[in-house]
């Protein structure tokens, strides 16, 4: 808290003459209206679909299928189910953490697992997880005063993502910008105007990463997210260092909501929950020339500057392709065709009613796109993606009704095996890059496979062990489990296990959307048949232990 002591001795900080500007963080500017007629395609009719199609769709739209989800979705069809999901109330994470008897480190992950396994608003939870990997904050890199503050404020940050998952991207961007966890993570908190005589200049961190990672990326994009090229075939930078330095000035003046209580000794815990407030004396009121040469006029306060700045960034033509492509990549397929990206980006530009950044329409468009529904892509791409380790784990728990005797989902060490934990990336660039491509056929063909960046020789034994452990050791037949052990319930599967084909049909639907290959089926069948017919428990459990580490389960296509 050295920066706070600095505040105390700053002569210009006089507590009696401060003009406080608190900002609620709600979208203070209406999204712009676009006058040109929208390009829309008629929605597919709502018709019932097969159980297999429903299961496959649930791998994109939830943490994993359950029989109940499959039944509902197959009756309603894709679109009606999406509409119903989007209308569900949000299941927040904060209240889960708040209700715990004792709040320790990393309870936000307990909330995350509980919601992934149990909540009805699965699509919202799944989209928020995607957003958490674009608008990254992390437990690593924020100096929290104590475990409780860390857990509640990370859960609170996650709730912002949930709240705006079907809202407007502009509102999301603003609320994230003013969130104190983000403020600390990318050091906009405490950012101040220049003090030339002390060689102090505004902090460039937030301005840079917000553009590079949250909104527009480094290079000018076409509407299909391919890079625009200059006359000599080179990509065109979206901004330069001068732009960053000017924008760093825009984001000056912000600090913790309780900064005055801290400075005056009434409080000793920084407020990581409420939106940051402004110390107007520390805000640079000069004119700034920002992204695209736009001018932010002099003599505005910090809030006006911030609002203008986010409007300018939000209206940059890159945002639609940049964000749309990442949403597609993280939900549906790593290598969407250019046409698919452009179709979704077009909806981002205009939802059909003249609104830009309407995530509800964007998500719906991408999930209902022909490319997603038919699992086919252009000749130069391949369809599908590697599942994230965390999603494989949460999916196993959801599909097989994981429970603990005390009702909690606290598991502290899983990230050591999975290399992934919610809101715990090692830097703002997320666990893996959207541009990552493993060597061999992927590089040779120009395909990406982002999730492979965290599947390496260094962790594959760990990951395999952990998934098998969750099945083979942590199931409802475990003798004398501790009250906090999380166990999957395979009682239904055991009732099916006498007939190997019945059991495999069930696993095929629940784990593979009906796409289990004949080879995998044969290998699994032979394996099951090595266990006696009167040990249905062994047959059901061992089969699942094999299937959750099979390459076919690790991939979503």
């Amino acid at each position, binding site marked *: 808290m050295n920066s706070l002591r600095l505040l105390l001795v700053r002569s210009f900080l006089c507590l009696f003459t401060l003009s406080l500007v608190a900002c609620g963080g709600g979208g203070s500017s209406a999204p712009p209206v676009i006058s040109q007629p929208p390009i829309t395609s008629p929605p597919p009719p709502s018709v019932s679909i097969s159980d297999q199609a429903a299961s496959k769709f649930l791998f994109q739209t939830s943490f994993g299928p359950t029989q109940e989800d499959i039944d509902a979705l197959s009756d309603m069809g894709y679109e009606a189910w999406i509409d119903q999901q989007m209308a569900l109330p949000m299941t927040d994470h904060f209240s889960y953490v708040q209700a715990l008897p004792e709040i320790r480190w990393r309870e936000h992950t307990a909330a995350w697992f509980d919601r992934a396994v149990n909540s009805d608003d699965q699509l919202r939870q799944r989209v928020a997880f995607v957003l958490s990997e674009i608008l990254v904050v992390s437990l690593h890199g924020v100096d929290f005063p104590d475990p409780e503050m860390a857990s509640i404020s990370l859960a609170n940050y996650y709730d912002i993502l949930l709240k705006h998952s079907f809202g407007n991207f502009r509102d999301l961007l603003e609320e994230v910008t003013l969130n104190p966890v983000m403020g600390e993570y990318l050091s906009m908190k405490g950012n101040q105007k220049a003090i030339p005589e002390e060689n102090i200049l505004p902090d460039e961190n937030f301005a840079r990463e917000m553009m590079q990672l949250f909104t527009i990326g480094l290079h000018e994009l076409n509407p299909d997210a391919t890079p625009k090229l200059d006359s000599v075939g080179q990509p065109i930078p979206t901004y330069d260092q001068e732009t960053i330095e000017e924008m760093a000035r825009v984001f000056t003046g912000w600090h913790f909501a309780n900064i005055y209580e801290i400075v005056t000794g009434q409080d000793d815990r920084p407020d990581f929950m409420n939106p940051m407030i402004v110390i107007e004396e520390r805000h640079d009121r000069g004119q700034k020339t920002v992204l695209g040469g736009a001018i932010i006029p002099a003599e505005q306060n910090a809030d006006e500057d911030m609002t203008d700045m986010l409007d300018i960034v939000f209206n940059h033509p890159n945002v639609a392709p940049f964000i749309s492509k990442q949403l597609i990549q993280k939900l549906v397929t790593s290598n969407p065709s250019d046409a698919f990206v452009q179709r979704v980006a077009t909806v981002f530009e205009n939802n059909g009613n003249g609104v830009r950044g309407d995530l509800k329409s964007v998500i719906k468009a991408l999930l209902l796109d022909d490319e997603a529904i038919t699992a086919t892509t252009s000749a130069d791409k391949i369809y599908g993606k590697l599942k994230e380790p965390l999603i494989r784990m949460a999916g196993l728990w959801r599909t097989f009704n994981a429970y603990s005797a005390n009702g909690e989902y606290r598991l502290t060490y899983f990230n050591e095996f999975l290399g992934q934990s919610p809101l715990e990336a090692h830097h703002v660039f997320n666990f893996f890059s959207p541009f990552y491509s493993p060597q061999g056929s992927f590089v040779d063909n120009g395909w990406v496979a982002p999730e492979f960046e*965290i599947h390496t020789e260094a962790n594959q034994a760990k990951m395999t062990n952990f998934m098998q452990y969750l099945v083979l050791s942590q199931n409802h037949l475990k003798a004398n489990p501790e009250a906090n052990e999380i166990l999957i319930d395979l009682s239904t599967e055991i009732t099916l296990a006498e007939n190997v084909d019945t059991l495999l049909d069930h696993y095929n639907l629940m784990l593979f959307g009906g796409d289990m290959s004949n080879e995998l089926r044969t290998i699994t069948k032979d394996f099951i048949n090595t266990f006696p017919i009167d040990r249905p428990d062994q047959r059901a459990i061992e089969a699942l232990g094999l299937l959750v580490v099979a390459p076919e389960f690790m991939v979503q296509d």
Partner: protein
Amino acid sequence: MTSMKRREFLKLGAASLIGSGLVNFPRLSFAQNALPDYKALVCVFLHGGNDAFNLIVPTDSDGYAEYSNARQNLSVEQSALLPISPLTNDGHTYGLHSAASSLHELFNNGKMAVMANTGNLIQPITRDEYRNKSVPVPTELFSHNNQQDQWKTINLTSGQNSGWGGRVASIYASQQTEPLLTGLSVNSRSLWLRNSGFLDLSVSADGFDEYWFVKEGEGYENKRRTAYLDNLYREYANQFEQEIAVTNQRTLELVESVGSVLQNTPPLNTVFPEDNGYGLSSQLRMVANMIAARDTLGMSRQVFFVEMGGFDTHDDHNQDQPNLFGTLADSLKAFYYALTEVGAASDVTTFTASEFGRTLTSNGDGTDHGWGNHQLVIGDAVRGGDIYGTMPSLEIGGVDDSGKRGRIIPTTSVEQYVHSMLNWYGLDNNQIQTVLPNHGAFDMHKINLMI
């Protein structure tokens, strides 16, 4: 599983390389054209942009005044600096940050050299050329991931798919008993090790975890193992499935061959420091263990990549820096002594890298992304106890400042920095030119760090 079948799984790398469409290096039954000696390069990447301008600081009154004028509230106390006596004198005296006493020891014993003000360059450039934009500069300067990639690839014309560590390793891979072990990154994959026909392998700092539930044994495990392996060693039409199957094939083979070799290698006596959450110490310990087993594994040339994060000090700079420097220094020192213990201190050269240095100016309680930066080179083959290259002016807006924030323009390129190390490693001029395609832009004999 019969022992015949098991041997097939031990064809380390062969199946994996075929599976991933890479060149098939046969696993040699004995090192037929092995080199007579052993050499390794260890790249220690400081992730986030290390502020080495606070690690090596001028201590003479003029030099310190310039430094403290620039750095203001980020300045290290003059009295706390640990004095060094470089062999060559540039008119200034220098000291190391007090948290880096382990580096002080290495420098004073002639085991460490400092490479001054190096960074990504396309060609040499002056301040005026930079400001006039009359000379090309690396793209996306000041962006973490792009500058990291450029450091690792220094391959500015042909995309980002080949790292220079991988280009070095590829030259030697076919002469190793375990070709796949020629280049290793600890914990995460590294672009530095990529090259076509060569794999950017990564291993865990914890060693080689066994596949608990499918290892060879009796009863269920063998049945499980058979079924599991049948799924791994299938041809998948789906490229994602094929890739993850091959990754696991490779991992299992590594675990079951190299893992047992390492288990039978005597443990190091050298005590490595606590990781302090940064992971560098345990990564270096893993590298030391691999080097200890070099003869058993039949290795004569290797390159290793380790990394330490936390250097992106936009905030809390003065609080974090002692921990960063202390952890880095203590880990590097332990590694050096571990190499001495296994008789490899003159065969292994360890060098640091970082995407960029940091601004000399402050943003209140931290720094922003810079460009030029000092690096460290450690080993018995290093002409240590000296500073190489040119120490920059630290004046804000001065002759080496790209602008007004103290983003120092590098005076030595990455190519020049690593050239003498590659020479020592055994590469001839043609090979060096392949590894450093942009060598023609620089005087490649400017820096000679090696004995």
